[in-house]
C-alpha cells in the first residue's frame, strides 16, 4: 500500500474514536475535528518520509492530543454529554427503561465530575490501551 492509502485507511477507521477522545478531554467539537484531520495528515507525512509506524491508531491519538493541547487554551465551554441524545432502548418496559436511564445519568454525572485528563485515561483504557500506551499518549 502507498503512504496515501495507509493514511487514508487509518483515517477512515479511527477518526471517530480519536474525535471522541479529544472531545472528552474538553476540546470543542469543531476544533477536535480539525485536530483529528491534521493528525492524520501528519500520519501521511510520516509514512511518506518512510517512518515505520507500528500502531497508527496510538500514533494518531498521540499526535491529535498534541494538536489539542495547542488549541485548548482559548477553548469555549460547552455541554459534553447531552442527555437529549441518549439512545432509545426499544423493547424495554417503561420502568426498566426509566431505571436504566437513571443509571446512565448517574454514570454520566460521575463521568463529568472527572478532570479532562481522568476522562481521557478512562476512555483510552476502555478502548483497550495498555497503561504504558496511555502514559505515552498523554505524556504523563
Amino acid at each position, binding site marked *: 500500500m502507498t503512504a*496515501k492509502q495507509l*493514511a*487514508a485507511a487509518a*483515517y477512515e477507521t479511527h*477518526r*471517530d474514536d480519536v*474525535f*471522541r477522545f479529544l*472531545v*472528552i478531554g474538553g476540546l*470543542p*467539537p*469543531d*476544533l*477536535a*475535528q*480539525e485536530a483529528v*484531520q*491534521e493528525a*492524520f*495528515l501528519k500520519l*501521511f*507525512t510520516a509514512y511518506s518520509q518512510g517512518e515505520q509506524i507500528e500502531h497508527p491508531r496510538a500514533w494518531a491519538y498521540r499526535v491529535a492530543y498534541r494538536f489539542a493541547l495547542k488549541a485548548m487554551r482559548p477553548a469555549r465551554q*460547552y455541554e*459534553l*454529554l*447531552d*442527555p*437529549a*441524545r*441518549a*439512545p*432509545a*432502548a426499544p423493547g424495554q418496559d*417503561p*420502568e426498566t*427503561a*426509566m*431505571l436504566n*436511564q*437513571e*443509571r*446512565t445519568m*448517574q*454514570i*454520566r454525572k460521575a*463521568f463529568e465530575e472527572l*478532570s479532562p485528563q481522568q476522562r481521557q485515561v*478512562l*476512555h483510552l*483504557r*476502555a478502548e483497550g490501551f*495498555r*497503561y504504558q500506551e496511555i502514559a505515552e499518549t498523554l505524556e504523563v
Partner: protein
Amino acid sequence: MIHPDHEALLAEVTGGEPTSDTRQHLEICEDCRQMAAELQRQWEAYRVFHKGPMTEMLPQPPQPWEDLRPRMNTRSGNWQWMAIAAAMLLTVLAAWQYLRQPPSVSAAVLLVKAVAAAKTPNPARRIVVRSTRRTLVRPAVEAAAPDSEKDFRALFAEANYSWEEPLSAKSYQEWRGTLESATDHVEEIPAGAAGSEALYLISTSTTTGKIHHATLSLRQADLSPVLTHLEFPGETIEISPEPAPPPPPAATIVKAPTMEIPSPGPTASDELRVVAALHSLAADLGEPVVIERTAEAIRISMVGVSPERAATIRATLTQLPLVNVAAADLRPSALPPGPSANPAADRILALSDAVMARAFAIRNLEARFPNGDAMAPPDRDTLRVIFADHAQALEQKLNDLTAAVQPRLPTLTADPAPPTSKASPESLLAAARDLDQALNRAFASRADSQIEGVAEALAQLRAAVVAHRNHWSNQR
C-alpha cells in the same frame, strides 16, 4: 498478610498488567476477591456506558468528515501552513453556523421518555376529538368503540393508529414504528406570558402511510400529551384533553363549603418535606437517590441502593403525600471494609470524603430551593435547620481533617496571609474538591511540592467555610 491496593486490583479486573502476586493473593483472600468483584462490576457498568449511551450523548463532528486524499496531494512546504489557516478559517465559519443552531432533541428519545413517564390512565379522563366534520367527546381510553364512532375507528385502523387511546405518546410511538420511512422534527416551545406551558412539539412527515403528517405536543414539565394533530387525505383530526369545567362563581363557593376541591400538584413545600425526611436518614450525603418534582407527584428513584436501605427510605417517604418511590437494586449490599495498608491515610481520605459530601449537600440544597427565603415560615425554618446541620458537620469534619493532616504539613502554620474566598456553595464545593484532589495527589506522590498543595487547598477550604458562615449569618 499484605493486601494489594485498589490500583493493583483494578489492573486485574480491567485486563491491565496485574502482577503474579496479585493473582496469587486473590486465590487466598476472600475480602480482596469481593473487592475485585465489585470493581469488576463498576468497570463493566462504565464499559456499557462507554460503548452505548456515552457515544450517543457526545457531540458529533459538526461537519461531514473531509476526504483528506486531495490535501495529502498538496501537502508540502509552506502550503501546509496556508492549508491549515484556510481550513481553520472554514472550520471557524462552519462552527459559527453550527453554534447558531439550537440543539436538537431526538423524537425517538423524547417518545421513549414520554412513554416511560406516562401514568396509568385515569378512567374518568375524557378527550375531545375534532375533525373537519364533527366534534366528539369520549373517554381517553376506550376498549370498544360504540357504533357512533365507527367512521373514526375505521379511519384510524386503516392508518395503524390506535383509536383505543389516541391521545398518548405510546400510540404515537407505535404508529411511527409502523412507518417504512419518516422525517421527524422536534421543536421546543417556551412557556408563554399568558400562562401557557412550555411544550415539545414532535412533527412526523411520511409518504408511506394513510396519515401523511402528524404532530404530538408534550408538556415539558411531565411529558404528558396535550394535543395530537393527524392529517389524513381530505381530513384533519385534532385530539386534546377535555377542558376542565370553569370554576363556579365565588358566591357559590361561599355557600357550598363542603364542595370537593381538586387536589393540586406537589409544591416546593412538599418537596422540602421529602428532602427533610431524607436528611433525617442521612440519605442526602451522596447516596444515589434522585428527587424529581413533576406536576403530579414527587418521584424518588434509587438505583444501586441496597434492598435494606431502599426499604428504609421507602417506608419513610411513602408516609408523605404525593410521593412515588421506585428503586432498583443493581449491585450487592455494601462490601465489608477492605484491607488497609495505610490506616492513617485512609482516615484522612475518609474525612475528606465526608467534607465533600456535606459541601455537595449544601450546594444541592441551594440549587433545589433557590428562593428559600420566600418560603412560608415553617418551611423556611426547616430549610434553615438542614443547612445549619450540614454547615456544622462540614466544619467539624474539616477540623478533624486538619488535626489529622497538620502533623504532616510543616508549612501550614507558616503562612501569614490566609486566602480569601467568595461566599457561595459553588466556591465551597470547589474548595472541598480541590482539597480532596490535593490529598490524593500527595498520597500518590509523596513529593514536597504536592504536600504544599495540600496546605494551600486546606487553607482555601477554610477560607471558603468562613466566607460561607459569614454570608449565612448575614443572610439568614
